[in-house]
């Protein structure tokens, strides 16, 4: 009986120690870097990743203060055989409006995929200090090693081609980033001019690929 109780006590102590260590590690990985986490970063990462990886800085420290749209432009073969360049299509706005019309829309996950891929793109190795490294980008595209986030956005655009009004076999596509600054809080009563306060960053054209339809 006493041995049984000793086993129980040891289990309690062991599990408490395990829980304590685990949550100290979890706490360390979720907070900003500290001298302790820099010193023991490898040990903490090997404990936490991949199963307990987490980040809870929802819209913080800075929430989105401008609109970041993913836009797409297509080159397609017209009926006469000529290659036509389409105007820019705002993919993000189309998906956002679908989600606004129906909060349970199945397109919400497509919207989330595009939005996350955009975030992944601007954090990828082709952006240095917020600026696009064009040389690195061209090197990556020519060797077919563009960042997964960029390739995902290109493929999302390819999948959306079939719902555009363009008639013709698609040849290539390029995506772009359109940043739009809407009125600041102190000027919130001003209407939002969609054509104003925009910065665009186009990416090179890439050949069309086979992608499953998104709807």
């Amino acid at each position, binding site marked *: 009986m006493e041995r049984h109780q000793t086993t*129980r006590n040891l289990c309690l102590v062991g599990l408490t120690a395990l829980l304590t260590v685990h949550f100290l590690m979890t706490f360390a990985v979720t907070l900003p870097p500290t001298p302790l986490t820099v010193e023991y970063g490898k040990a903490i990462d090997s404990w936490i990743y991949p199963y307990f990886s987490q980040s809870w800085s929802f*819209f913080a420290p800075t929430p989105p203060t401008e609109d970041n749209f993913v836009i797409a432009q297509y080159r397609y073969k017209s009926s006469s055989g000529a290659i036509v360049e389409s105007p820019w299509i705002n993919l993000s706005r189309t998906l956002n409006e679908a989600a606004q019309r129906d909060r349970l829309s199945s397109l919400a996950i497509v919207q989330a995929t595009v939005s996350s891929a955009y975030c992944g793109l601007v954090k990828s190795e082709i952006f240095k200090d917020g600026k696009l490294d064009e040389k690195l980008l061209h090197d990556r595209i020519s060797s077919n090693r563009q960042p*997964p986030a960029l390739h995902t956005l290109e493929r999302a655009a390819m999948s959306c081609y079939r719902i555009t009004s363009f008639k013709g076999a698609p040849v290539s596509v390029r995506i772009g980033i359109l940043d739009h600054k809407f009125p600041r809080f102190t000027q919130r009563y001003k209407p939002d001019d969609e054509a104003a306060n925009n910065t665009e960053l186009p990416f090179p054209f890439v050949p069309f690929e086979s992608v499953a339809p998104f709807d």
Partner: protein
Amino acid sequence: MSFFRNIAHRLSAASQSMSVARRQLGVAIVRIVFGGVTAVLYGLHFPQRQFLWGSDAVVTPADTATILSATHSWTLYSLFPSPLGGECLYWLGLIVSLLFAAGLFVRVTPLLFFVLTWSLYQRNAFALDGGDNLLLILTIYLMFADLSALSLDRLLFGPRREKNFAWLSGMLHNFAVTACLLQLAILYFDAGFYKIQGHVWSSGTAIYYILRSNLFALPGWGDYIWRSAALVTIGTYGTILFEIMHPFLMWHRRLKYLIFSGAVVLHAGIGLLMGLVWFSLTMIGAHAILFDDDEYLRLLKFMRAVYGNLNQAFRRPLVMESHTFDPTAAAEANPSAG
């Protein structure tokens, strides 16, 4: 010596107490919500499964492999990359989610549920949001919990009978519950901690920018909020206050009700106004673990009483009876009135 004997005695009392599984109903509700939300995900996106997770998906298998290599992760969809393999995994994931929600074979389904849901999200990591992240982490902890309450297992096979290791099962369950609670505490602490460092949050205008952004706007509803300085300020500071208070008040016997109410309001608002419906459901569902079994049973008793009263009120007909006063009958009925 008496000091050590005292410690040993307290340790024995603690281990006895921790050997009895608690909050089984709360944990069961979390199981039902997580399984249900994931099953809905599979069902809702069934027509899009090829686009999101198939062999010809928006994220190519090669890109998934690149991401997995960087994150030291894995997915069963890489092990079975063919269209048939992907289709089988998808159907298996849907079936297992339903079994998990219903509580069938609860000793096995939590692990299967984790493996298949993990695989799904790792196949397309861009589709993963904060709610899915919490769901996966809590599922790992719940693998060590007793999920048999409110389950088909209990209905079909009766209560679980542990022979020699009931105490270990109880202890693991209680530690799993504690882990879930600590995870919730860390989540909200971090969320609040990062917010107070942001200028837009501390100036009380963050809600305006979030609701005005095209990604999270809801025309006609969100406009009403972001146009109002009062609502923007209350919403911004209210969110920070709630998230900072949450990890501390959630342990209090009475104040946790306030935290739960706050969580429902905050996440319902996020779900409706910002379109993050499934994220919000997952977050609200996770809070079911805050309450112990007695509290759920009291709630059930209260709801039964309310239902009983309503039932009676609607059944009893309203009849105006004519009545003539009979003094003799009245005197016989009440002799003391004299």
